[in-house]
Each structure stands twice: as structure tokens, then as C-alpha cells.
């Protein structure tokens, strides 16, 4: 009788430990999976943002930001190849935001220049029309 009781207790304890172990395994396994997932999406997004920055003429108007973004992108690819996924994700996210910044700066500079250009043209047109409205010396007066 006591042997049966002992066996039951041992079984219960074993089952309890098994459940706890499974829970621990599940939690750690899951966190491990999420931390170790290859950041392919972040990397593709960074590549797209870099392309958009180049199209926005960031090479010309925000070269330092674009260069930094490109370096982060390359470093992210290297970290990805080395299966250092956390670092790869962070670097890809930085590449994204720096490429976005390069594009924003380039667009701002281009628009500012366009506004300045327009203002200059308006000023010169205004100057021409003002000169045109002032009567110059008549040819007769010029002869004298």
C-alpha cells in the first residue's frame, strides 16, 4: 500500500517537474527565437530607403548622411552573414533612418534652392519692368 502511494507521489512530482521544465523551455526557446530571427525585412527596407535617398539626390545634398547610411547597411549585411542577427537588425534600422534623413535633407535643400531661384527671377523681372517704365532720354536730347 505504502509502495503504491510512494510511486504515485513520485509520478506526480515527476509530472510537475516535467511541466515546469516544458514551460521554462518554451519561454527560453521563444525568446531565443525572436532575438535570433534574421532581420531580412529591415534589411530590404534599408535598401529601399537608400535607393530613395539616391533618387532624391542625397549624394549631392546630404553626402555625409548617405555615406553613413551606406556604411551601416554594409555592416548590417556582414553581421547578418555572421549570424549576428540582433546587431544586424540594429544596423539595418540605423541605415533606414539615416537614409531617410539624407533624403529629407536633400529634398529640403532642393526646395530651398528652388524658392531662392524663383525669388531671384521675380526680383530681376521687377527690376527690368521698373527700368522699362522710367522714360529714358529722347534721341533728340541725346544728339544735343
Amino acid at each position, binding site marked *: 500500500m505504502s509502495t503504491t502511494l510512494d510511486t504515485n507521489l513520485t509520478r506526480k512530482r515527476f509530472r510537475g517537474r516535467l511541466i515546469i521544465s516544458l514551460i521554462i523551455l518554451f519561454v527560453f526557446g521563444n525568446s531565443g527565437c525572436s532575438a535570433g530571427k534574421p532581420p531580412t525585412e529591415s534589411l530590404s527596407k534599408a535598401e529601399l530607403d537608400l535607393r530613395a535617398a539616391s533618387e532624391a539626390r542625397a549624394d549631392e545634398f546630404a553626402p555625409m548622411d548617405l555615406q553613413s547610411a551606406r556604411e551601416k547597411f554594409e555592416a548590417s549585411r556582414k553581421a547578418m552573414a555572421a549570424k549576428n542577427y540582433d546587431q544586424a537588425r540594429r544596423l539595418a534600422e*540605423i541605415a533606414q533612418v539615416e537614409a531617410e534623413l539624407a533624403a529629407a535633407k536633400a529634398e*529640403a535643400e532642393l526646395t530651398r534652392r528652388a*524658392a531662392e531661384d*524663383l525669388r531671384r527671377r*521675380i526680383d530681376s523681372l521687377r527690376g527690368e519692368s521698373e527700368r522699362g517704365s522710367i522714360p529714358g532720354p529722347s534721341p533728340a536730347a541725346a544728339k544735343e
Partner: protein
Amino acid sequence: MGRGIFLHGRTVRATLSLAAFFILGCGAVNNPALERARDAYNRARQDREIVGRAAVALDKARLTLERAERVWTEDKDVIEVEHLAYITEKRIEIARATARRRLAADDIQQLNPQRE
């Protein structure tokens, strides 16, 4: 006997350093990178040009800052917090550039009728 253990110079110094370590350690709940990002965001939020012309870009900065604050409160993951703080600062710079672009675009719109 006159040199009791608590009066021993080295012991006193060690105890004081230990106490200072714990006090400062407990008090140092702030992350410098996070503080910088928070300050930068608060400054941007008070800039009427940014609020008026780049609200969406500024909101993206706010969301990243909130994520950084959450990671700091819940996990104290210094690397991730510094990463998110850096992204917050870049997002604020994007908001600033966006505001500059919109201002120039508004100038163009105002100047165009004068050209005709």
C-alpha cells in the same frame, strides 16, 4: 584593542565606498542617451515650425522615444535603449528637415502668383 574593526581606516573607507556605490547605483536609474533623446524631443515639440509643418515626422520620433522609455523601464537593456534613443534623435532631425522643406514649398507657392 583600541583599533576596533569599525574604526580601522581602511574598513571605514571600504564601507563608505560600498555605501556610495549602492546609493549611486540605485539613484542612477537614468540613461544618458535616453535623457538626450527626451530633451531633443521636448525641444522639437516646442518648435512651432516643426509642430506645424512636420507633425507626422515628429510623431514617429515620439513613438520611438516611447519604445525606448518602455524598454528602459521594463528590461533595462542599455544597448537597445541607446539604439532607440539614437533613432529618436535622427527622427527629430528628419522632422526638422521636413519642416524646412515645407517652409520653402510654401515660399514657392506664395511667390508663384507674383511671377505672373
